[in-house]
Protein backbone atom coordinates (compact mmCIF):
# COMPACT_ATOMS: atom_id res chain seq x y z
CA UNK A 1 0.00 0.00 0.00
CA UNK A 2 1.78 3.03 -1.17
CA UNK A 3 1.58 6.38 0.50
CA UNK A 4 0.02 7.95 -2.55
CA UNK A 5 -2.77 5.47 -3.16
CA UNK A 6 -5.18 7.92 -1.56
CA UNK A 7 -4.77 10.08 -4.67
CA UNK A 8 -5.54 7.04 -6.77
CA UNK A 9 -8.72 6.37 -4.78
CA UNK A 10 -10.10 9.90 -4.94
CA UNK A 11 -8.94 10.29 -8.53
CA UNK A 12 -10.81 7.17 -9.61
CA UNK A 13 -13.95 8.46 -7.94
CA UNK A 14 -13.60 11.82 -9.68
CA UNK A 15 -13.18 10.08 -13.05
CA UNK A 16 -16.25 7.94 -12.42
CA UNK A 17 -18.39 10.88 -11.31
CA UNK A 18 -17.23 12.92 -14.29
CA UNK A 19 -18.29 10.11 -16.59
CA UNK A 20 -21.65 10.01 -14.88
CA UNK A 21 -22.02 13.74 -15.52
CA UNK A 22 -21.05 13.23 -19.16
CA UNK A 23 -23.73 10.60 -19.57
CA UNK A 24 -26.27 12.91 -17.95
CA UNK A 25 -25.26 15.71 -20.30
CA UNK A 26 -25.67 13.36 -23.26
CA UNK A 27 -29.12 12.33 -22.05
CA UNK A 28 -30.22 15.94 -21.57
CA UNK A 29 -28.85 16.98 -24.95
CA UNK A 30 -30.68 14.13 -26.65
CA UNK A 31 -33.96 14.46 -24.79
CA UNK A 32 -35.73 15.17 -28.08
CA UNK A 33 -33.61 13.23 -30.58
CA UNK A 34 -36.15 11.17 -32.49
CA UNK A 35 -33.57 9.46 -34.69
CA UNK A 36 -29.99 8.40 -33.98
CA UNK A 37 -27.37 6.87 -36.33
CA UNK A 38 -29.33 3.60 -36.31
CA UNK A 39 -32.60 5.31 -37.17
CA UNK A 40 -34.07 4.57 -33.74
CA UNK A 41 -34.96 7.16 -31.13
CA UNK A 42 -32.28 7.88 -28.49
CA UNK A 43 -32.35 5.70 -25.39
CA UNK A 44 -31.33 7.15 -22.04
CA UNK A 45 -27.97 5.85 -20.75
CA UNK A 46 -26.97 5.11 -17.18
CA UNK A 47 -23.55 4.34 -15.70
CA UNK A 48 -22.96 1.37 -13.40
CA UNK A 49 -20.40 1.87 -10.65
CA UNK A 50 -18.45 -0.91 -9.03
CA UNK A 51 -15.95 -0.94 -6.19
CA UNK A 52 -12.54 -1.52 -7.74
CA UNK A 53 -10.27 -4.53 -7.18
CA UNK A 54 -9.79 -4.57 -3.47
CA UNK A 55 -7.45 -7.62 -3.41
CA UNK A 56 -7.79 -8.18 0.30
CA UNK A 57 -6.73 -4.71 1.35
CA UNK A 58 -10.28 -3.41 1.55
CA UNK A 59 -9.49 -0.19 -0.30
CA UNK A 60 -9.24 0.36 -4.04
CA UNK A 61 -11.43 3.17 -5.30
CA UNK A 62 -14.28 2.96 -7.74
CA UNK A 63 -14.67 2.33 -11.46
CA UNK A 64 -17.42 2.54 -14.05
CA UNK A 65 -18.25 -1.04 -14.98
CA UNK A 66 -20.38 -0.27 -18.00
CA UNK A 67 -22.77 2.21 -19.49
CA UNK A 68 -26.17 0.61 -19.82
CA UNK A 69 -29.23 1.69 -21.73
CA UNK A 70 -32.30 2.52 -19.74
CA UNK A 71 -35.02 -0.01 -20.58
CA UNK A 72 -37.88 2.28 -19.58
CA UNK A 73 -40.63 2.40 -22.23
CA UNK A 74 -40.16 5.00 -24.95
CA UNK A 75 -42.33 8.06 -24.91
CA UNK A 76 -44.93 8.22 -27.71
CA UNK A 77 -46.26 11.51 -28.99
CA UNK A 78 -49.19 12.00 -31.31
CA UNK A 79 -47.80 14.11 -34.20
CA UNK A 80 -49.37 12.95 -37.48
CA UNK A 81 -47.50 15.60 -39.52
CA UNK A 82 -44.09 14.39 -38.44
CA UNK A 83 -42.12 12.55 -41.17
CA UNK A 84 -41.21 9.77 -38.72
CA UNK A 85 -44.76 9.20 -37.51
CA UNK A 86 -46.04 5.61 -37.75
CA UNK A 87 -49.34 4.49 -39.29
CA UNK A 88 -51.33 5.63 -36.27
CA UNK A 89 -49.67 9.06 -36.27
CA UNK A 90 -47.41 8.47 -33.25
CA UNK A 91 -43.73 9.42 -33.08
CA UNK A 92 -41.43 7.42 -30.78
CA UNK A 93 -39.55 9.87 -28.56
CA UNK A 94 -36.53 9.17 -26.28
CA UNK A 95 -37.23 7.77 -22.81
CA UNK A 96 -35.13 10.50 -21.15
CA UNK A 97 -36.71 11.84 -17.96
CA UNK A 98 -35.33 15.37 -17.50
CA UNK A 99 -36.15 15.50 -13.77
CA UNK A 100 -34.24 12.27 -13.11
CA UNK A 101 -31.32 13.58 -15.12
CA UNK A 102 -31.16 16.83 -13.17
CA UNK A 103 -31.24 14.95 -9.87
CA UNK A 104 -28.53 12.62 -11.16
CA UNK A 105 -26.38 15.55 -12.19
CA UNK A 106 -26.67 17.30 -8.83
CA UNK A 107 -25.85 14.07 -7.01
CA UNK A 108 -22.81 13.49 -9.23
CA UNK A 109 -21.51 17.01 -8.76
CA UNK A 110 -21.87 16.81 -4.98
CA UNK A 111 -20.00 13.52 -4.89
CA UNK A 112 -17.32 15.01 -7.11
CA UNK A 113 -16.93 17.94 -4.73
CA UNK A 114 -16.64 15.62 -1.74
CA UNK A 115 -13.81 13.77 -3.46
CA UNK A 116 -12.02 16.98 -4.36
CA UNK A 117 -12.20 17.94 -0.71
CA UNK A 118 -10.72 14.59 0.32
CA UNK A 119 -7.93 15.03 -2.20
CA UNK A 120 -7.11 18.54 -1.01
CA UNK A 121 -7.06 17.56 2.65
CA UNK A 122 -4.82 14.58 1.93
CA UNK A 123 -2.48 16.71 -0.10
CA UNK A 124 -2.12 19.22 2.70
CA UNK A 125 -1.42 16.46 5.19
CA UNK A 126 1.22 14.99 2.93
CA UNK A 127 2.91 18.33 2.41
CA UNK A 128 3.10 18.68 6.18
CA UNK A 129 4.47 15.18 6.50
CA UNK A 130 7.23 16.03 4.04
CA UNK A 131 8.46 18.81 6.33
CA UNK A 132 8.59 16.46 9.32
CA UNK A 133 11.61 17.12 11.53
CA UNK A 134 12.59 20.38 9.90
CA UNK A 135 13.36 23.65 11.72
Amino acid at each position, binding site marked *: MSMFSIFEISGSAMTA*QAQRMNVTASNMANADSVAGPDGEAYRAKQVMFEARGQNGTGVGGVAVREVIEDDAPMRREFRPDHPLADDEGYVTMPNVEPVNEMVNMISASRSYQANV*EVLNTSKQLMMKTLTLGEN
Partner: protein
Amino acid sequence: MIDRLAAALQFDQEALNLRHQRQQVLANNIANADTPNYKARDFDFSQELSRAMDSGRPADGGLALSTTAAGHIGGHGQSAPVGDLLYRVPDQPSLDGNTVNMDVERTRFADNSVRYQAALTMLNGRIQGLKSAMQPE
Protein backbone atom coordinates in the same frame (compact mmCIF):
# COMPACT_ATOMS: atom_id res chain seq x y z
CA MET B 1 22.25 3.98 19.38
CA ILE B 2 20.26 4.30 16.21
CA ASP B 3 17.92 1.51 17.28
CA ARG B 4 17.27 3.40 20.50
CA LEU B 5 16.27 6.40 18.44
CA ALA B 6 14.00 4.21 16.34
CA ALA B 7 12.44 2.77 19.48
CA ALA B 8 11.85 6.27 20.84
CA LEU B 9 9.96 7.22 17.73
CA GLN B 10 8.15 3.94 17.19
CA PHE B 11 4.92 4.83 18.93
CA ASP B 12 4.43 8.02 16.94
CA GLN B 13 5.38 6.22 13.78
CA GLU B 14 2.78 3.53 14.28
CA ALA B 15 0.14 6.09 15.22
CA LEU B 16 0.87 8.14 12.12
CA ASN B 17 0.85 5.06 9.93
CA LEU B 18 -2.52 3.95 11.25
CA ARG B 19 -3.96 7.43 10.84
CA HIS B 20 -2.82 7.31 7.25
CA GLN B 21 -4.41 3.89 6.71
CA ARG B 22 -7.65 5.12 8.20
CA GLN B 23 -7.52 8.15 5.94
CA GLN B 24 -7.39 5.78 2.98
CA VAL B 25 -10.25 3.64 4.19
CA LEU B 26 -12.43 6.72 4.73
CA ALA B 27 -11.44 8.16 1.35
CA ASN B 28 -12.47 4.86 -0.18
CA ASN B 29 -15.85 5.07 1.53
CA ILE B 30 -16.39 8.56 0.14
CA ALA B 31 -15.25 7.42 -3.30
CA ASN B 32 -17.78 4.60 -3.27
CA ALA B 33 -20.68 6.67 -1.97
CA ASP B 34 -22.71 5.88 -5.12
CA THR B 35 -21.62 2.30 -5.75
CA PRO B 36 -24.47 -0.22 -5.38
CA ASN B 37 -23.91 -2.90 -2.73
CA TYR B 38 -20.78 -1.26 -1.37
CA LYS B 39 -20.47 -1.61 2.39
CA ALA B 40 -18.71 1.15 4.31
CA ARG B 41 -15.55 0.02 6.13
CA ASP B 42 -13.61 1.35 9.09
CA PHE B 43 -11.40 0.07 11.90
CA ASP B 44 -11.00 0.57 15.60
CA PHE B 45 -7.98 2.85 15.89
CA SER B 46 -7.04 2.25 19.52
CA GLN B 47 -7.32 -1.50 19.15
CA GLU B 48 -5.17 -1.52 16.02
CA LEU B 49 -2.61 0.77 17.64
CA SER B 50 -2.22 -1.42 20.69
CA ARG B 51 -1.92 -4.45 18.45
CA ALA B 52 0.71 -2.74 16.28
CA MET B 53 2.68 -1.83 19.41
CA ASP B 54 2.44 -5.37 20.80
CA SER B 55 3.04 -7.50 17.78
CA GLY B 56 4.16 -5.29 14.90
CA ARG B 57 2.33 -4.50 11.73
CA PRO B 58 0.23 -7.18 10.08
CA ALA B 59 1.88 -6.20 6.79
CA ASP B 60 5.12 -7.81 7.99
CA GLY B 61 3.44 -11.20 8.15
CA GLY B 62 0.76 -11.57 5.56
CA LEU B 63 -0.18 -14.94 4.18
CA ALA B 64 2.81 -16.80 2.80
CA LEU B 65 3.18 -20.13 1.06
CA SER B 66 5.31 -22.60 2.98
CA THR B 67 8.43 -23.66 1.11
CA THR B 68 9.51 -27.18 1.97
CA ALA B 69 11.78 -27.93 -0.97
CA ALA B 70 14.45 -25.97 -2.79
CA GLY B 71 12.36 -25.68 -5.96
CA HIS B 72 9.36 -24.12 -4.23
CA ILE B 73 8.53 -20.58 -5.04
CA GLY B 74 7.79 -18.40 -2.05
CA GLY B 75 4.51 -16.61 -2.55
CA HIS B 76 3.20 -13.75 -0.52
CA GLY B 77 -0.47 -13.00 -0.35
CA GLN B 78 -1.32 -9.36 -0.15
CA SER B 79 -2.12 -8.56 3.43
CA ALA B 80 -4.67 -6.15 4.74
CA PRO B 81 -3.40 -2.70 5.76
CA VAL B 82 -4.72 -3.28 9.25
CA GLY B 83 -5.62 -6.38 11.22
CA ASP B 84 -9.32 -6.38 10.73
CA LEU B 85 -11.29 -3.98 8.69
CA LEU B 86 -14.78 -3.79 10.10
CA TYR B 87 -18.08 -2.93 8.46
CA ARG B 88 -19.96 0.10 9.62
CA VAL B 89 -23.42 -0.50 11.07
CA PRO B 90 -25.77 1.51 8.84
CA ASP B 91 -28.38 3.71 10.45
CA GLN B 92 -30.21 4.38 7.18
CA PRO B 93 -29.33 1.77 4.57
CA SER B 94 -30.33 2.70 1.06
CA LEU B 95 -32.28 0.52 -1.36
CA ASP B 96 -29.28 -0.30 -3.54
CA GLY B 97 -27.45 -1.98 -0.66
CA ASN B 98 -24.97 0.84 -0.14
CA THR B 99 -24.26 1.66 3.51
CA VAL B 100 -22.15 4.81 3.08
CA ASN B 101 -23.56 7.72 5.03
CA MET B 102 -21.83 10.73 3.52
CA ASP B 103 -22.21 12.96 6.60
CA VAL B 104 -20.70 10.34 8.88
CA GLU B 105 -17.83 9.65 6.50
CA ARG B 106 -17.00 13.29 6.02
CA THR B 107 -17.02 14.11 9.70
CA ARG B 108 -14.85 11.05 10.42
CA PHE B 109 -12.53 12.12 7.64
CA ALA B 110 -12.20 15.65 9.03
CA ASP B 111 -11.71 14.24 12.53
CA ASN B 112 -9.08 11.83 11.30
CA SER B 113 -7.15 14.51 9.43
CA VAL B 114 -6.98 16.74 12.51
CA ARG B 115 -5.77 13.78 14.54
CA TYR B 116 -3.20 13.02 11.85
CA GLN B 117 -1.92 16.57 12.22
CA ALA B 118 -1.86 16.16 15.98
CA ALA B 119 0.19 12.98 15.64
CA LEU B 120 2.48 14.80 13.22
CA THR B 121 2.95 17.69 15.65
CA MET B 122 3.76 15.35 18.50
CA LEU B 123 6.25 13.44 16.40
CA ASN B 124 7.82 16.72 15.37
CA GLY B 125 8.07 17.77 19.01
CA ARG B 126 9.73 14.51 19.91
CA ILE B 127 12.25 14.88 17.10
CA GLN B 128 12.99 18.45 18.20
CA GLY B 129 13.50 17.22 21.76
CA LEU B 130 15.95 14.55 20.64
CA LYS B 131 17.74 17.02 18.41
CA SER B 132 18.20 19.59 21.14
CA ALA B 133 19.44 16.86 23.46
CA MET B 134 22.15 16.12 20.90
CA GLN B 135 23.38 19.70 20.69
CA PRO B 136 26.67 20.50 22.42
CA GLU B 137 25.55 23.12 24.96
